[in-house]
């Protein structure tokens, strides 16, 4: 008969919890450190994912099918779009809406007494009446230019431009000094997320620019709403359509892409909190190692008994290693639940949708498991090196 000591894999799991059940309070306390670390990691990643998700949802609500066409600039030398560009673009099949603006190179002031240098960076642009719908802008007050007011000395101010000029009414009672004549403010826009350049502009109709200001400026920006299923196709033909003779002079942009990129980049702040969470996790791991070392000292009798019952060194070591890993895993699970809860509460306070990426939860618990296993290595080694006779002699 061959005598061999062996331990079934199924029994290792039972061994891992036997020791913990004996001292539940200590087990819970030592798992708390890991739980806090994991909760921090999950909360930080979850909150930033929720905030990003919210931003993306807002961007999606604005539509990701807005494209802008503008003249390219090569090392300071600016080109211009041909005057026919807006008409050509509107003939592209899957273009649902389009609107052009043209920089009129005049300035707007609160009244004629303001020194001309105080233009406050407000650009005066001619705008198509379809601009409001195309960029999905909303009016803060008044109304947008229509086919009638586009011929009249009427102006719609961007949100920042209105603030800079000190205009807070758009009922026609306020006029501004624009291109050396009075224009009535008929509307004020809300901030336009997809076309922030409109916030600091004063918009007049193309006919008014032509008849009243005597300006015939080439379009500086064409806003295009493409069919959502054909955004890529429209994007690829826009340059050649806008300027068949010089497509290289045309810049195409998708403003929602830029916003999305900014939403991704804004996650940078989280690295500080992530490192705090990692430190908490590390301290938790050290706490577990500490508790396990004490456990090995206290349980010398049990270790001796197991060796007498035929446990090999590796069996004893494995028991303590699994115990540490179980402790840490339990802490990790509790932390993941806590963290997810924190994200849910924070998101509901902010009226966001809650996003806790499952990968983050699994990763955090996995990291906790590894921390516990590493923390358990030294105590497990100590336990496995105990001489059985000596271990049994201790009370």
């Amino acid at each position, binding site marked *: 008969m061959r005598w061999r*000591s062996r331990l079934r894999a199924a029994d290792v799991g039972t061994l891992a919890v036997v020791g913990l059940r004996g001292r539940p309070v200590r087990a819970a306390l030592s798992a708390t450190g890991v739980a806090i670390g994991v909760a921090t990691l999950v909360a930080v990643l979850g909150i930033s994912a929720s905030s990003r998700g919210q931003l993306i949802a807002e961007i999606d609500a604005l539509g990701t099918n807005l494209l802008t066409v503008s003249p390219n600039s090569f090392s300071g030398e600016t080109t211009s779009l041909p005057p026919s560009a807006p008409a050509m673009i509107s003939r592209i099949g899957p273009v649902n809406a389009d609107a052009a603006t043209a920089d009129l190179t005049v300035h707007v002031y609160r009244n004629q007494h303001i020194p001309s240098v105080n233009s406050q960076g407000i650009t005066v642009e001619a705008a198509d009446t379809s601009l409001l719908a195309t960029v999905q802008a909303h009016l803060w007050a008044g109304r947008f230019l229509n086919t009638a007011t586009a011929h009249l000395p009427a102006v719609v101010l961007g949100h920042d431009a209105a603030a800079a000029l000190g205009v807070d009414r758009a009922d026609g009672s306020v006029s501004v000094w624009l291109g050396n004549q009075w224009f009535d403010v008929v509307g004020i826009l809300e901030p336009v997320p997809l076309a922030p350049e409109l916030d600091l502009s004063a918009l007049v109709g193309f006919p008014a620019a032509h008849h009243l200001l005597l300006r015939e400026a080439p379009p500086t920006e064409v806003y295009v709403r493409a069919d959502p299923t054909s955004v890529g196709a429209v994007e690829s033909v826009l340059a050649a359509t806008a300027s068949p003779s010089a497509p290289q002079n045309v810049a195409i942009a998708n403003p929602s892409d830029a916003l999305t990129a900014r939403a991704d980049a804004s996650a940078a702040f989280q690295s500080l909190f992530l490192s705090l969470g990692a430190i908490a996790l590390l301290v938790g791991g050290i706490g577990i190692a500490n508790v396990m070392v004490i456990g090995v000292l206290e349980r010398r009798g049990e270790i001796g008994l197991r060796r007498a019952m035929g*446990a090999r060194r590796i069996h004893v070591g494995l028991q303590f290693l699994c115990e540490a890993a179980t402790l840490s895993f339990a802490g990790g699970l509790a932390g993941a639940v806590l963290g997810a809860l924190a994200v849910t509460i924070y998101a509901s306070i902010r009226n966001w949708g809650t996003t806790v990426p499952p990968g983050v939860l699994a990763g955090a618990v996995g990291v906790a498991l590894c921390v516990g296993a590493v923390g358990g290595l030294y105590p497990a080694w100590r336990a496995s090196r105990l001489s*059985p006779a000596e271990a049994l002699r201790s009370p």
Partner: protein
Amino acid sequence: MSALELRDITKEHAGSTPVVALRDVTLTVDTGEFVAVTGQSGSGKSTLLAVAGTLERPTAGTVQVAGKATEAMSDAELSGVRCSGLGFVFQQFHLLPTRTVLHNVADGLLYRGTPAAERLDRAAEAVAAVGLDHRSEHRPGELSGGECQRVAIARAIVGEPALLLADEPTGNLDSVTGGEIFALLESLHERGTTILLVTHNDELAQRAPRAVGLRDGRVERDERR
């Protein structure tokens, strides 16, 4: 075949002042024997049991358990000898407080790789053999000292070892309970268990069929009745 064969065993405990615990001890325990080893504190009887149980290696001499020479064995191989060939009973019982009586006894088979269901079946038999079937689902904290030692004995015999090693099993018990434990060992012996008992209780040792006296690490007497 002999269950245990100690030949010319010397055991020196290393330290700043080395202590020689055993000097040239030769002792053979045949299968089916019940041997009581007695001696004063410091006579080396606990060291004898540790060496016989392969818990400690002798400084010199050879140990054979059920005919297997152990001196060349690795630590893992010695673990195999302990789990299959030997059963241990200690003065302090060494029961796990969170486990029921049945599970404590079943753990005696844990390192043999026996499936859990079979362990529990055999544990139930061993618990019955020490007369504690009515306590199977209790925890050690709910038992008296004598009952705890019965559980420990059941754990030691659940694997039917070639040799049962008992280190002062009555040391923590009053004389009546100690007598009962000794009687249990006697009845196990009658049913075929080979027992090596270490005790400082001469009165009990005199009841064993064979009594070995140790003094200063040497065998002083070896009497059979």
